[in-house]
């Protein structure tokens, strides 16, 4: 069954793209392919210049670790670890431990998003909005080229939603990170540089706020 039919596009560094569509339209599949979690059955996908079809599962894992940060609808933090440890996880996966510089950088990010109070608390001891912010810092920990978010505000109340979205926007702009977000919220989508609308596996691209 073909989920996505003949999709072709390229995204620039620092761009903010919103992906909109009904459930079952194929947007999650698109996101998974973009994040090298899944290989396309046909076609070419290049992330930061690397053709992912040339990589085996180990190579894909390394690519994800270095180039891609994910933010999911549910924060998926690890309750056995503190917020700081969660945020540092991509670095720890790559090298076993974080250098003092990396630690300082992540702590600064946490401070930036207003989490300095809860740095050492366990992930299940803070609010939903705070948890999602930790997830955002985690996605940025390894300084990726691309952040992929799958309805990151879907599970939050409107206040937290606003906060989280603004934060993601600012962070990605500040660090020159490409930001692609799946959302069903047209208001948020309207703020993107470009909107990818998916319907029955076909993508149509339209400009956003520009």
């Amino acid at each position: 069954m073909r989920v996505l039919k003949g999709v072709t596009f390229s995204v620039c560094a620092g761009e903010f793209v919103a992906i909109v569509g009904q459930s079952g339209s194929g947007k999650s599949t698109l996101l998974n392919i973009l994040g090298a979690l899944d290989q396309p059955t046909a076609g070419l996908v290049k992330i930061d210049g690397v053709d992912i079809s040339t990589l085996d599962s180990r190579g894909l894992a390394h690519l994800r670790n270095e180039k891609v940060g994910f933010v999911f609808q549910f924060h998926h933090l690890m309750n056995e670890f503190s917020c700081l440890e969660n945020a540092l996880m991509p670095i720890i996966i790559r090298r076993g431990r974080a250098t003092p510089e990396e630690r300082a950088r992540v702590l600064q990010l946490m401070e930036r998003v207003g989490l300095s109070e809860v740095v050492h608390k366990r992930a299940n001891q803070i609010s939903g909005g705070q948890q999602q912010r930790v997830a955002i810092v985690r996605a940025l920990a390894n300084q990726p080229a691309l952040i992929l978010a799958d309805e990151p505000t879907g599970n939050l109340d409107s206040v937290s939603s606003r906060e989280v979205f603004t934060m993601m926007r600012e962070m990605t702009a500040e660090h020159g990170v490409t930001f692609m977000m799946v959302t069903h919220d047209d208001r948020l989508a309207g703020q993107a540089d470009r909107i990818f609308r998916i319907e029955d596996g076909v993508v149509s691209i339209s400009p956003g706020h520009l």
Partner: protein
Amino acid sequence: MSFESMLAWRYVLTSRGQTGLTVAAVAAAVCLIIFVNCLLLGVQDRFIRDLIGSLAHITVKVPDPDPEPLNDTPEQRYAVQVEKQLQKRTELKRPEALEAILSNYPHVSATASSVGGQAFIIRGVRQFGVTIRGADPIKQEAISNLNDDIVAGRWLTIGSNDIVIGFKLAEDTGVRLGDTVTVLSSERVQSSFTVAGIFDTGQNQIDGSTVFVTLRAAQSLYATGRDASAISVKLDDPWQANQVSELISDSLGLKTESWMVEQAQFVNAFAAQNGARVMISLFSLAASAFGIASVLIVSVFQRSRQIGILKSMGATDAQVLRVFALQGLFVSLIGAVLGALSAWGLLSFLLTFKQVERFGKSDQLFPAILEPRVFAMAMVAAILATLLASLLPALRAARTNPVEVITEG
């Protein structure tokens, strides 16, 4: 490896229920294996010590003179009936020289010439059938450890007129230390002896009918001159008896009796016991491994979303495998140590129980031996079994497809 061990250790610490169950499974298996092996080995060890403590490992005698048919040509067939000559005493000539030769054989730790046979102890009108063993006390001591069993009088320093008897025989005959007894041997030599010592070996057979005299005394009783009827041999490893005994009989042409053959029923019983011991150990390892595998599989299933997230962050399949394998390793290490400690405690407690005392000597009721090798092997086996058990769940975890587990919910 830091990421994997950090994660594994954190999992062990935070999932208390699972960790508790799996550690308990390993500890129980290790404790059981150590307990059963130490107890059975101890029982065997003591039994062998008691049994052959007073016996020689190998007894060397003159070969029985078997009659042989004179004509042995293959073309002709004869109907032959071979009749063994009945009981005739045959003695080893120049036993001292023979002892020296035997000492050079592998595993031989002590030798003692002996003369023995049947005799009667005469007390008034009553006659008691006994077995006489005549040997040099110091040399015989290296073979049969009689001195530890002496409960009255002496043994090592007895003279040619002294006799040492078992406490049961003393009771039966009403004889006490210092009394004089008359001994009539099967060679019809009669002699008087003073009871110089009384022993209790714990074996009724010996305590009731075996008596010890010096070699010279026995040589007179049986008119053997300077010859000996047998040479007893002690080995540093009793289980080599069959091999060494064959070696001796093949090279010297003498008849040898190994304790393993003479006491074959016990040797077979031990073999059966050892088989049971090994099977119990293997089955408890298997049970423990299955228990652990099932707990870990549940753990992997529960963590499948977390594994997916880790993979989305770039954790490789190999890394995920190592996390769960390490979890199994940590659990098995903790469990093995706990199991070994409990076994040690349990065995030490059992060792405090004493048997009924007799003559101020008492043995442990449960003669377990705290053999370090058993402890080490049980722990290593449990660790390996647990690692193997963790392999299936770990592989399952490594193969988790992040796309499937993340997009639910």
